[in-house]
């Protein structure tokens, strides 16, 4: 038994037999042929080229629908690379006069072309060498013993193991036969992760060596909950995972029975439960959920993997489809929280490398320095509100002072004015709120609450800043502590300040779906929570099993406690009693 640790990309447990997708690498050794073989190799090259072009044509449309226009655009670029006379001429020359095999000729040509790109200083243009490699590998895969046929020939339910999957590969997968997949490369938001989420199958990425460690036919467990791949599990592990899988299934079918019921506590206290929504990973399951609205639409994805900032039109289309999807229920759009770990490819004004990016230029700070990004996004949102009678709420990320709020409000008013001059007006008033995640904003909230329509607490970052702990640093990660007395008191103060001015408070972040912390959040009188679609019914079920009066007592007690240990005991004892 071997256990590999990777990045959980799509939740769930899959158990089954492995199919390893053969990788394509650029050969550096030269294989020569006899003169008589030249025309045969030329033919092979032309055939592979033709086949690859057809394949790209077929996939382009499907990719546009599932992964979005940025990947479809990538496939167009790949097509042009394969049609490029520079590539074609060099390969044909190498076969014709150097007597190389088609495979060697293609590999060598790709290497030479990519080397030219290494000389370029501009990092964006330099990156294009990866496109050449990708397009080239696709071509190599279509030379004889062919990988795409391989994928579509999978006949029985299997777990797929690959070094990496092309967007086009993931499209040609026989969906019903793939129980889950894992790859050596990729991150939480890579196209493989998004695809797995939209197919609703478990996936683990970033496993480094999985494609080498796994052999065809090995028994595998993909643990998409914890990001683990178990190869040839022992009997005990296998039985354990089968049990977990059964339980997940049982809980899920039980939870479905409360889908249509209201989100209220046993004693009738109403809490609004919103969903965090990502249009890229919407799947059948998510569509069946009945929710109170959209609590967090992250918009960073529109700004990533693109050489230019997204145009108003492109943003408008997405916001419009989201607003329609949620009909008359609230739709909370967070302005792009770029910076820190989400840095776009395109050049931004006044932005140099940050030594400490989480305390640097991110969120609203970055938007105010690049006003055209802010204005374009606000314009797209206002345009959406003029089109459909949605309840749109705009959320400002990383606010630390009232001046920032006023700058955004001024830009927003100016845009409303521009629309008014064209005779257009939002069908419903757009609310403007702030994400409270900087302690300074939490402490001095009374100074900015009058300028805001609503508050949302971003607990992941707020806790990180409150206890001064970087969760990524293993030395201190254990000190990241939602039970720290400072966390509860800060959340409570925010809610009190907002309620004094009759403004609502929503909580998003992992704490919102933490069953232990839930009674405290309710007891401090939070108005709404926003959780992932997957956690939605679980949290709803937990709320429906709570007693609000009891929560209030607990929450009051927690505010008087002076240590994490006391608060942890309180919430854990409570959970134990209830179960």
């Amino acid at each position, binding site marked *: 038994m071997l256990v590999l640790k990777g990045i959980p990309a799509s939740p769930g447990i899959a158990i089954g037999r492995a199919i390893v997708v053969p990788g394509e690498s650029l050969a550096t050794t030269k294989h020569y042929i006899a003169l008589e073989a030249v025309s045969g190799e030329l033919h092979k090259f032309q055939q592979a080229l033709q086949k690859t072009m057809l394949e790209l044509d077929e996939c382009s449309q499907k990719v546009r629908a599932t992964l979005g226009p940025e990947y479809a*655009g990538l496939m*167009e*670029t790949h097509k*042009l*690379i394969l*049609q*490029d*006379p*520079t*590539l074609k001429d060099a390969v044909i020359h190498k076969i014709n006069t150097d007597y190389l095999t088609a495979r060697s000729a293609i590999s060598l040509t790709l290497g030479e*072309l990519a080397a*030219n*790109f290494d000389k*370029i*200083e*501009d990092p*964006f*243009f330099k990156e*294009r060498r990866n*496109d*050449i490699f990708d397009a080239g590998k696709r071509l190599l895969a279509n030379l004889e013993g062919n990988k795409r046929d391989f994928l579509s020939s999978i006949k029985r339910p299997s777990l797929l193991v690959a070094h990496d999957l092309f967007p086009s590969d993931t499209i040609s997968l026989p969906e019903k036969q793939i129980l889950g997949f894992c790859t050596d490369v990729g991150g939480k938001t890579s196209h493989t992760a998004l695809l797995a989420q939209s197919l609703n199958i478990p996936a683990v990425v970033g496993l480094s060596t999985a494609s080498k460690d796994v052999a065809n036919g090995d028994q595998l467990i993909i643990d998409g909950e914890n990001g683990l791949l178990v190869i040839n599990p022992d009997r005990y592990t296998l039985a354990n995972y089968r049990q977990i899988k059964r339980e997940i299934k049982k809980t899920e079918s039980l939870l479905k029975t409360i889908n249509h019921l209201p989100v209220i506590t046993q004693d009738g206290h109403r809490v609004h439960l919103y969903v965090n929504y990502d249009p890229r990973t919407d799947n059948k399951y998510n569509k069946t959920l009945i929710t109170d609205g959209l609590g967090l639409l992250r918009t960073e994805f529109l700004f990533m993997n693109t*050489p*230019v*900032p997204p*145009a*108003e*039109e492109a943003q408008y289309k997405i916001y419009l489809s989201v607003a329609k999807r949620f009909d008359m229920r609230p739709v909370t759009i967070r302005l792009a929280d770029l910076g820190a770990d989400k840095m776009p490819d*395109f*050049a931004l004004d006044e932005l140099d490398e940050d030594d400490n990016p989480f305390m640097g230029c991110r969120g609203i700070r970055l938007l105010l320095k690049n006003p055209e990004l802010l204005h374009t996004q606000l314009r797209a949102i206002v345009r959406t509100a003029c089109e459909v009678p949605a309840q749109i709420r705009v959320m400002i990320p990383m606010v630390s002072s009232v001046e920032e709020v006023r700058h955004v409000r001024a830009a927003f008013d100016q845009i409303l004015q521009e629309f008014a001059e064209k005779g257009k007006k939002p069908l419903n008033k757009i609310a403007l709120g702030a994400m409270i995640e900087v302690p300074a904003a939490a402490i001095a909230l009374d100074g900015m609450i009058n300028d805001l329509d609503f508050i949302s607490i971003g607990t992941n970052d707020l806790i990180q800043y409150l206890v001064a702990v970087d969760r990524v640093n293993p030395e201190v990660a254990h000190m990241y502590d939602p039970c720290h007395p400072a966390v509860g008191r800060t959340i409570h103060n925010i809610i009190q300040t907002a309620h004094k001015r009759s403004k609502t408070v929503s909580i998003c972040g992992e704490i919102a779906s933490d069953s232990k912390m839930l009674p405290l959040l309710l007891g401090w009188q939070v108005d709404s929570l926003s959780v992932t679609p997957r956690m939605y019914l679980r949290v709803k079920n937990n709320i429906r099993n709570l007693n609000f009066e009891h929560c209030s007592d607990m929450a009051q007690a927690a505010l008087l406690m002076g240590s994490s240990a006391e608060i942890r005991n309180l919430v854990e004892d409570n959970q134990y009693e209830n179960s």
Partner: protein
Amino acid sequence: MVQKELTILNRLGLHARPAARIVQTAAMFESDIELTKDHVTINAKSIMGVMMLAAEFGASVCVTAKGSDEVQAIAALEKLFNDKFNEEF
């Protein structure tokens, strides 16, 4: 042979999408079309060539066309450059 000096007017330069537009436009003509920037000359029908120019905002690029439809080819490319490659930024 026709030659024309053109300037990159879109803010983000000749990245993948504008490069693709140039190649697609050039491919519609029979003439040989070349782009020259900083003494580097490339074939305008080659996407890798155009991307390798790494032409940024404000850069000046010399377009040369030679062939039966050279005049039309230059006119089409000039329009493309002036329309900022139909990009919004």
